[in-house]
């Protein structure tokens, strides 16, 4: 059964294969549900003190948030290209794409460092008020997801040349899907915490 043929997941409706694998999606959906709860909890407590939340939110550096969003979205495009390259056997290209995505991830972490340090120096910490508690905890948990994703991207970037069977390509896909989830979560966190 082990062949070295590289196939794309079927694109026709007659023969759809699941992207990644089912077990991964259980994790992904679970993580998304947890963050959904985070969003709603934030909004529930925000409604009890809109003024504090709004004035605190105004303190945030939206530019940092926008740059991070652009980094996340671009890194996702790079991961998509990497997965496509891996599927057609261009492992060298895939490696370059995954490494580039990894750099975007590192950029995200760096901006977060700038952002957190700027706020802390200004005197806004986790215990300043409820808004900042949610801000640090939610972006912090997301940041941990990013760090894990960076490790996964590194694994993908360095191993893709030897991962050519369908099963191994599936692992690459799984890594990609995880990264897209991290991107997806930020896409909601950013407007929720910074904009509205």
């Amino acid at each position, binding site marked *: 059964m082990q062949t070295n043929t590289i196939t794309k997941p079927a694109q026709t409706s007659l023969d759809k294969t*699941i992207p990644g694998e089912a077990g991964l999606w259980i994790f992904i959906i679970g993580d998304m549900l947890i963050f959904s709860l985070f969003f709603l909890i934030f909004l529930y407590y925000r409604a009890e003190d809109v003024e504090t939340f*709004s004035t605190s939110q105004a303190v945030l550096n939206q530019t940092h948030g926008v740059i991070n969003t652009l980094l996340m979205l671009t890194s996702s*495009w790079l991961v998509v*290209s990497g997965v496509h390259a891996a599927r057609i056997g261009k492992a060298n290209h895939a490696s370059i794409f995954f490494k580039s995505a990894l750099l975007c991830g590192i950029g995200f972490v760096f901006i977060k460092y700038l952002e957190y340090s700027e706020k802390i120096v200004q005197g806004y910490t986790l215990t300043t008020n409820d808004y900042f508690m949610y801000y640090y905890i939610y972006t912090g948990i997301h940041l941990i997801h990013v760090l894990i994703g960076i490790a996964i991207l590194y694994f993908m970037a360095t191993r893709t040349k030897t991962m050519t069977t369908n099963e191994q390509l599936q692992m690459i896909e799984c890594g990609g*899907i995880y990264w*897209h989830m991290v991107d*997806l979560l930020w*896409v909601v966190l950013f407007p*929720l915490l910074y*904009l509205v």
Partner: protein
Amino acid sequence: MGRPLSITLSGMTLMQYLRKKETFVWGLLILMTILAWVFGSNNINSVTGSADNIAAIVLTLAFFKVRLVLMYFMEAGSAPWALRGILEAWLIITFSLVIFFYITGGEMLVAPFVR
């Protein structure tokens, strides 16, 4: 004659990776991010509470972006209907709840469970 973007990676050019629908999706995502930023920026909204309408627009943009990532990057768009269904359901339920909780604080839904 130099061609634009003739960066070559072992025979394939960068253009070949760029000429995909996912690149168009990426462009949309970037555009919507900038739009949301402009709408939601502190210059437009008052500090004591952004207009609910603007917030609704920004949040709608956000969830539309989420859907693009789900369907085109995570390839849920071409996945079996069961998976796609679950994700679409999560999307619409979460989006509705977020808008509802943003505007009302969710008191109505949470009250029966509190104390």
